[in-house]
């Protein structure tokens, strides 16, 4: 195929060279298929489900909609970067203990979205949480346990202040 390029992506603080890649590839594809980071999931590849959520330069985005080659000068954070030292984050922990995970396909995207929300607002109200998560579809849980997980993290963080 024509239109191949070499470039470097900064993912979770590490430089990852991408060699001889077709420039039409999405960031989601490159993360999953070229960089060995399959934690971000693809369930629609058109920006509707949030399974592929990553954070680029502080903004939560659907990596399926970003051309990888356009993200060369950015800081990309993926689910793999959250518990790098092996310790789960409070959000990850709460997703497990509150039963927010069933099949788990939506989970990485949701965990990223929740972290991103709580970074900008450490005490969001119910509607803010629902609105912030409304771009992440979960087909298994009906969202009840996901809200419970978010509530648990908010309560813990408030208590720890």
């Amino acid at each position, binding site marked *: *195929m024509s239109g191949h390029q070499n470039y470097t992506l900064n993912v979770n603080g590490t430089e990852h060279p991408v060699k001889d890649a*077709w420039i*039409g590839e999405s960031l989601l*594809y490159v993360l*999953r*298929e070229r960089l060995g*980071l*399959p*934690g*971000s*999931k*693809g*369930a*629609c*590849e*058109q920006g*509707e*489900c949030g*399974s592929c959520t990553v954070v680029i330069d502080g903004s939560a985005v659907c990596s399926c909609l970003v051309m990888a080659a356009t993200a060369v000068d950015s800081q990309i954070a*993926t*689910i*793999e970067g*959250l*518990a790098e030292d092996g310790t*789960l984050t409070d959000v*990850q*922990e709460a*997703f*497990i*203990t509150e*039963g927010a*995970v*069933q*099949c*788990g*396909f*939506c*989970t*990485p995207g949701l*965990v990223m979205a929740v972290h991103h929300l709580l970074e900008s607002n450490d005490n969001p109200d119910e*509607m803010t*949480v*629902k*609105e912030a*998560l*409304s*771009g*992440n*579809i*979960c*087909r*298994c*849980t*009906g*969202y*009840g*346990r*996901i*809200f419970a997980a978010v509530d648990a993290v908010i309560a813990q963080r408030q208590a720890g202040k």
Partner: protein
Amino acid sequence: MVLTKTRQRDVLGHSALRPDGTAKVKGDFAFSSDLWAENMLWGATLRSPHPHARIVSIDLSKAWKVTGVEAIITASDVPGQLTYGLISEDQPVFAFDVVRYMGEPIAAVAADHPETCRRALAAIEITYEILPPLTDPEMSIGEQHIPIHPDGNLIREQRIVRGDITATGPIVVEGTYIIGMQDQAFLGTESALATPDHDGGGVEVYVATQWLHEDRKQMAKCLNMPEEKVRLTLGGVGGAFGAREDISLQVHTSLLALRTGRPVKMQYGREESFFGHVHRHPAKVWMKHHATAEGEIVKIEARFLFDGGAYSSTSAAVLLNGITHTQGPYRCPNAIVEGFASRTNNPPCGAMRGFGVVQACFAHEGQMDKIAEAAGISPVAVRLLNAIRTGDTLITGQILESVAPVERCIRETDALPLPPPLPTDAHELLLPGGSGLTADRRHIVRGIGYGVSIKNIMYSEGFDDYSTARCILKDGVATIKFATSEVGQGFVTLAPQIARSVLGVDEVVTETIDTQIGSAGSTSASRQTWMSGGAMDGACRMVRERLFEHVAAIHKLDPLQLAIENTDVVDTRGHLRIPVSEASSGVRFEETFEYHHRPTEDLDENGQGNCHVAFAFVAHRAVVDVDPELGLVKVVQIATAQDVGRVLNPLSVLGQIEGGIAQGLGLAVMEEIIVQDGKVRNPSFTDYLLPTALDAPTVIASMIEEPDPQAPMGAKGVGEPPCISVTPAIVAAIRNAVGKSIDRCPVRPQDICL
């Protein structure tokens, strides 16, 4: 005072946490789409753009010229049986003469990159002779019908006749109910990785499926291989809900791998996924209820028509489920029911959570409200008056032997608190339509509706859907194995809970889920807790017996007087108490157990027979806010009391309840695959809308525990009931709010405001 810290063990009854939870929250869990192999190729499928056409010619020459293409296969490359199917083998692996639905596979390619695959597919030239699509299920089986398949258009016809068919009463109510085509819309699309054996004589496949052994059986026939040469391992499954009961890409991927001698991975995109699996049957259900002046059912007349689409899949069983649940969870002495599943050039339909009962329930619950109105009693009163009980006879003549706390389900649901009225300053996202479509607050009306359902669990009509499990106890560690598909429901959590409870161990190792053990049957029909749970319980109990024999021999005791207490083996008549870890140290006990449910039978020509194994019940109450001017709905709250037998894991059960309710809400007001002239118009998440966090209602749930003596652990399956009667409850609430008869789901704005 000495305080002993009681350690909570993850035994039955506790909210044990998912063993795969850590991997899933870290993004480490390997879904089938995450698999990768050295030297791997990508596979992709060419599908028909036409719902009905004759294939005149297929020209692959240009596709072969695309650099990077390693294999192109069509029907002529299928070495074994050309067709497959769960009940009847009527669906081609690749269409070979005629295509019968839009999206039917015709060819597949393997290449070095997904983009190469796309280009190769685009270069395949097919000449079609377009045929008129037969899309009306009524016409399909009408007098003049032209068969669109060698097996004919009538997939199944079955009637039920019971009691006095001339019986009637002062109340007669009638309705024709339409149920739309719903998609399972699991998030993890179809995917598989197939690796050929070096000698090409076998293949190893990682796949997301509901039933490994059935896939293997069908694949082996099409691949013309002995079953043992087709080895399946469960790839991580991103949800299922019935859509993985039929095979999809299994044969295609395996053939490409065998042809190229290289591993091949195939993964559907979302649009392809809409074409790649069966959907919930759209149905038309007519019901006429005769009742006494007080509202007691005297007789039901009904006619069901399920649109099976182009191939039969499980339509025959869905039809059976539909008609045998005509009466709902209510007594009915007389009935005359006829049901048809017909073949059309619409997308094939098959299993989806609720399996035929969703359609029946939508109709019978609409009817119950009509009876209530005619009798001048409340929706709750009419349901209590008719509620079925254990020991009653169903319209099939089968005695309802399952524990049937229907009355309790209704009363407890009704007793759950109602939500406060919509505040005058409510957030705009809480209004019907949410932001953008903001309803006028002054117009918003609130409605309440009820739905109650009965659902068979396990397979029916003489089918022996057994399950197998193995347990090994060694040095205080239990190692368990089963082929039960984990699709998110949580059997991987439950199985170790069973082992801990029965054996008194804490450490349980679960082996890989694959075909290296006997079948577990399908993860469907709310059956795995009962069936695979029963198998696991059986295997662990057999191991426990061996352990007791071993301990008894050493201590010169009767093994029958030994028991497990927490993590110890204890002598119930003496003082012996040894930790299981010590008692099993240096020994190894291994047992495999096959659990079979009691046999069932076929229905006779009048629909009489003990066709079902067991039943579960549930009630739902829905509260909705509606803007009648704009036809917008907000589901505010769902209250539910569900008959679960026994709660083995409260958190898992709650997850099934809340998740099922969201899917039932989808069918009530959002989700429908739109098919026009056989063409699917909305195969994407942009156009097929799924409930989001903002659509999720508040759920208050109560679990009714009346252990069923027939169930291995007293527990009934809990997966399907939550999504069944919630749909009619929501639609009843909308009717209640706007005072208009609405006999279809999903309810669209025009059904409310026009």
